[in-house]
């Protein structure tokens, strides 16, 4: 059933009795043409585009828990494309373009909201780095502009720009097209879209092994629901990538860290944009529901626990209270964690490990939500055609051997 104001009205009159399931709950078939491991946003988008653009209908997405329950369902939803390096601009801007039409593409309101993402500069080094981004982005046709502290305040009146604070705001870069999207809706929209194209989304179906034939090529996956044959497996499992790749004997340049976020109790609108500060390690936006959504840093150590230490959240909130002294009296409602897979250069890996039939899309770390449509789109292409397209090509694993890193971290860029 198409989603629209009319259908909501008509169904409402009928007591909402006829809404169909947004996706089926199929049992796995014995074999598929391809299997995507991980029903996060990236995995679901991959399946959707494989079906839609490559005509692959006999495919499945296997999810160990509930779809969208990984980082897709626990991130602070910041979307932007003003990255430093050309390769990054390529993929994040590709995603951004898809975001702009995504609600219609999926017939699902993913609430993509280009409310502006502002990054604060607190010292001269920040200014230099951010201006470099502004210039690089402008050249690539990606919007990113420099604001004085006063302009930053105008854009976000909640912001404290007084000069006498410990880390005064001395300027900011602003991507107006950046913003947020409703995390859950993204997963659900892609799931519904993929399902309608015939993709089997199989939840509660953990992949526990990858079977390889005599030639070493992938022949199927062991799962909680038994063996499923396939010659192509795309792993899109974020924090769990190392574990799954390990099943095929592949080591990865990844470490998995807990990353926390938290929300305040809901309040009437206080800020309409997204504000990020790398220097004091905090970022905040306000959701449509009214809660302030605040991102914290990663814990120091690797973990698969989806919880982090109190000191991390504490550290974030002291920074938030410095930047926005008016929020000090608000209260933290909930604090949770995800597991992010971090690469040495903080850029993703989209590639083919040396196992025929195995593909991997991972390493999005603390900032892959924004890439969801783009990542799924190019990865679908890779899994379907066997070769990466121009946007995905730079993100091979091989770069760690050759030294051609895409180092967004070193360039002192901000995560997320």
């Amino acid at each position, binding site marked *: 059933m198409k989603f629209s104001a009319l259908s909501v009205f008509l169904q409402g009159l009928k007591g909402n009795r006829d809404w169909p399931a947004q996706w089926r709950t199929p049992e796995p078939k014995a074999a598929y043409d391809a299997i995507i491991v991980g029903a996060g946003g990236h995995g679901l988008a991959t399946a959707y585009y494989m079906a839609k653009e490559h005509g692959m209908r006999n495919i499945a997405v296997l999810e160990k828990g509930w779809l969208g329950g990984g980082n897709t369902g626990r991130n602070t939803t910041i979307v932007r494309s003003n990255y430093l390096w050309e390769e990054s601009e390529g993929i994040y801007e590709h995603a951004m373009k898809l975001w702009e039409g995504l609600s219609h593409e999926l017939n699902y309101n993913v609430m993509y909201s280009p409310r502006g993402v502002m990054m604060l500069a607190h010292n001269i080094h920040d200014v230099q780095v951010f201006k470099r981004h502004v210039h690089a982005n402008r050249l690539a046709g990606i919007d990113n502009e420099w604001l004085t502290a006063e302009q930053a305040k105008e854009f976000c009146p909640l912001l404290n720009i007084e000069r006498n604070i410990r880390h005064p705001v001395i300027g900011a870069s602003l991507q107006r097209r950046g913003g947020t999207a409703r995390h859950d809706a993204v997963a659900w929209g892609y799931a519904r879209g993929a399902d309608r194209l015939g993709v089997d989304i199989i939840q509660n179906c953990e992949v526990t092994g990858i079977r390889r034939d005599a030639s070493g090529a992938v022949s199927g996956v062991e799962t909680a629901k038994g063996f499923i044959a396939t010659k192509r497996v795309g792993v899109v499992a974020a924090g*769990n990538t*190392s*574990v799954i790749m*390990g099943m095929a004997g592949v*080591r*990865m*340049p*990844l*470490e*998995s860290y807990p990353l926390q976020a938290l929300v305040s109790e809901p309040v009437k609108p206080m800020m309409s944009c997204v504000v990020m500060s790398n220097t004091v390690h905090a970022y905040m936006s306000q959701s449509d529901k009214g809660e302030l959504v605040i991102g914290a840093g990663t814990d*120091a*150590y*690797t*973990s*698969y*626990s989806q919880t982090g*230490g*109190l*000191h991390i959240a504490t550290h974030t909130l002291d920074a938030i209270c410095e930047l926005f002294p008016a929020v000090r009296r608000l209260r933290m409602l909930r604090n949770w964690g995800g597991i992010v897979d971090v690469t*040495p250069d903080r850029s993703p890996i989209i590639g083919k490990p040396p196992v025929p039939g195995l593909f991997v899309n991972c390493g999005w770390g603390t900032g892959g939500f924004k890439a969801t449509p783009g990542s799924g789109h190019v990865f679908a292409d890779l899994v379907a055609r066997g070769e990466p397209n121009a946007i995905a090509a730079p993100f091979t694993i091989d770069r*760690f*051997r*050759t030294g051609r890193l895409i180092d967004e971290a070193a360039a002192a860029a901000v995560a997320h």
Partner: protein
Amino acid sequence: MLLIRCPYCEMERPELEFRYGGEAHVARPLDPMATSDDEWADYLYFRSNPRGLHAERWRHINGCGRFFNAIRDTVSDKIVVTYKAGEARPATTGEIA
């Protein structure tokens, strides 16, 4: 905040005094120039990142200053044992939460 037993101080101390140092027992090749690009990349970047027991380095940076190793369960974050740098990885029963 974890409590970590420093094998040099012989005392459990709060995580805030420590700096995490990544996977342990990733030995620097004795003759780096003799390694292949693949071997070198493996040393530099590739990590086991297990779900379960993980041998890892910590430094008691705001304490005695020493590096040491710990075996921690990355699911429960429980530290099973800590031992001094240079000591072999102790046998641990595969107790995973």
